[in-house]
């Protein structure tokens, strides 16, 4: 549970696609300066929850609150401008624009920076994400690692209060994931709240102080990372023991 003022929260979120219920009454919140990890087996609804929090999906039921005010159903650009940054699971660079231009779009729209100040901020963010040398490369020419970094850099350039990260470590080597952890720690020390979906739990726990486990569209555990990973329901969800054993 949030130890400080809640920045972003979702209450009673349900999301149905036709007959399929992907989110089934999810309650979630993240405090300012807090880092929360979300784990859970494939199809648990993690990315859908992130989409709802980022405004790219409207929940069927429930409310999303940013600093206590409802933003349910507001368009994604509004979320971004309010301070909700987002890095996609599959990186989506602006392929025909340079790395610098990719970040500049984010800094000048979501981030609200102008002129020289925007340039300056872009260079800082690119430096932080280890992309400075590649500033003039076209987005589509980047490999996976750099695409993931660009995804993060763009989210940071929007000056987020809270940043939503979707498996930005997936597909990276341990060494590369380690670099990413350093960047995210740096962010946290600057006071940005973090919501991070990741399968690689040992990477996740280097950063987060709280872990949420989802299964079948519900939150099944929420709390101290070690306690959550030891929770019977979590082990059950991951190891997939017989359905009869599930509570």
């Amino acid at each position, binding site marked *: 549970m949030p130890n400080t003022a809640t920045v972003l929260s979702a209450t009673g979120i349900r999301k149905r696609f036709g007959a399929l219920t992907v989110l089934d009454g999810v309650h979630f919140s993240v405090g300012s300066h807090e880092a929360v990890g979300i784990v859970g087996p494939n199809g648990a609804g993690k990315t859908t929850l992130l989409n709802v929090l*980022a405004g*790219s999906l409207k929940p069927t039921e429930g409310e999303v609150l940013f600093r206590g005010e409802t933003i349910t159903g507001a*368009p*994604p*650009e509004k*979320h*971004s*401008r309010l301070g909700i940054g*987002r890095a*996609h699971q599959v990186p*989506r*660079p*602006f*392929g*025909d*624009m*340079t790395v*610098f*231009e*990719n970040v*500049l*779009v984010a800094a*000048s*729209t*979501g*981030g609200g920076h*102008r002129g020289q100040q925007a*340039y*300056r901020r872009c*260079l*800082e963010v690119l*430096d*932080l*994400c*280890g992309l*400075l*040398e*590649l*500033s*003039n490369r076209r*987005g589509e020419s980047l490999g996976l*690692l*750099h695409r993931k970094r660009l995804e993060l850099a*763009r*989210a940071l*350039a*929007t000056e987020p209060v809270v940043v939503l990260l979707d498996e930005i470590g997936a597909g990276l080597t*341990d*060494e590369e*994931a*380690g*670099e*990413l*952890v*350093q*960047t995210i720690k*740096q962010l946290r020390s600057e006071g940005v709240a973090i919501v991070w979906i990741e399968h690689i739990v*040992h*990477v996740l726990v*280097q950063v987060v102080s709280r872990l949420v486990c989802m299964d079948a569209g519900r939150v099944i555990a929420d709390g101290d990372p070690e306690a959550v990973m030891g929770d019977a329901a979590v082990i059950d969800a991951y190891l997939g023991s017989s359905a009869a054993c599930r509570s």
Partner: protein
Amino acid sequence: MSGPQGGTERLSALSIQRWTPLSRAFTGGALALAAALIFVPVLLSANVTQKLTSLFILIMIAVMWNALAGYGGLVSVGQQAYIGIGAYGTVLLAHQGLEPYAAMVLAVVLSGLVSVPASYLLLRMKGGQFAIASWVFAEVFAIIVTLRVDLGAGTGISLIELNRYGAADRQAFTYWLTLAATTITLGLIFVLLRSRLGSSLQAIRDDEDAAASVGVKVMAGKRILYIIASTGCGAAGAMTLANTLFIVPSSIFSVKWTAFMIFMVLVGGLGTFEGPIIGAVILFGIQDLFADEGGWYLVGLGMTAILFALLLPRGLWGTVGERFGIQLMPVGYRVRGLGRTGRSPTGVAPADEAAVSRAEV
């Protein structure tokens, strides 16, 4: 990660470049050329004046289509709607007793006004749906005009009101108006593409959802671009009428306009500012040399377009500009001074490696 240690000092060694000496010189030269072109009707023959007017019209529509498709990702097959509205709007207003050149300017405004409600209808669609719907939209206007006897129905109509001016004066006025319209539209698009909105539009073109997620107002951006491009095509329509004096709905609303726009933009270089202008000059040259060959001329155009799509997919300027790193009218950004920092982009600080080696797999 190669963190921000000692960053401020190194970062301040970097600068953002938009203009180069070459591009400044070229842009200055282009403005000087536009100024010099003012004297063409005085110094050269009526024939040259009329041909240059046609060239300016081609440049205008090529630049507009490139802005739409190459920078905004809006592949329209229906911009001829506004060419027709610009032309028939001029006829309608002139028939009401308005001075014909004033009618042209007002018809351009009218094209822009029509594009506002149209944008609410058409921009709801994406990709192929948008392309086809925009074409249908143009056909609807063609049919409406065909049904209006007072507009000459299917047999066409002349702008007889222009007869109050002598042939030479008329040709000169039309030329100057077209030159002004072309210069203004090119300047406007150039400023727009260099602005904050310009880079937002390119982001929309590359990935609409990702653009929204970093704060780009996607719909507003598309709408502004669509309205500007439609107004520009309206101007091209009004000028075409003034240049040829006679229009037929099946021709002014013809999808061949879109074929020409695509040809010019693909041959010149989609998504480059300079390309469509080069493409327009090439199309103009081909039309001038081969237009008498009838059907074979269109076959030749199609073949040329296919060859370019296969062999030079980025177009003439897209290929040349990229190979030599030249931008004559720069709309992008370059970070300068990176070479001096001499740091590997994947450099790992030792502390991070330790952290990684402790982590379990």
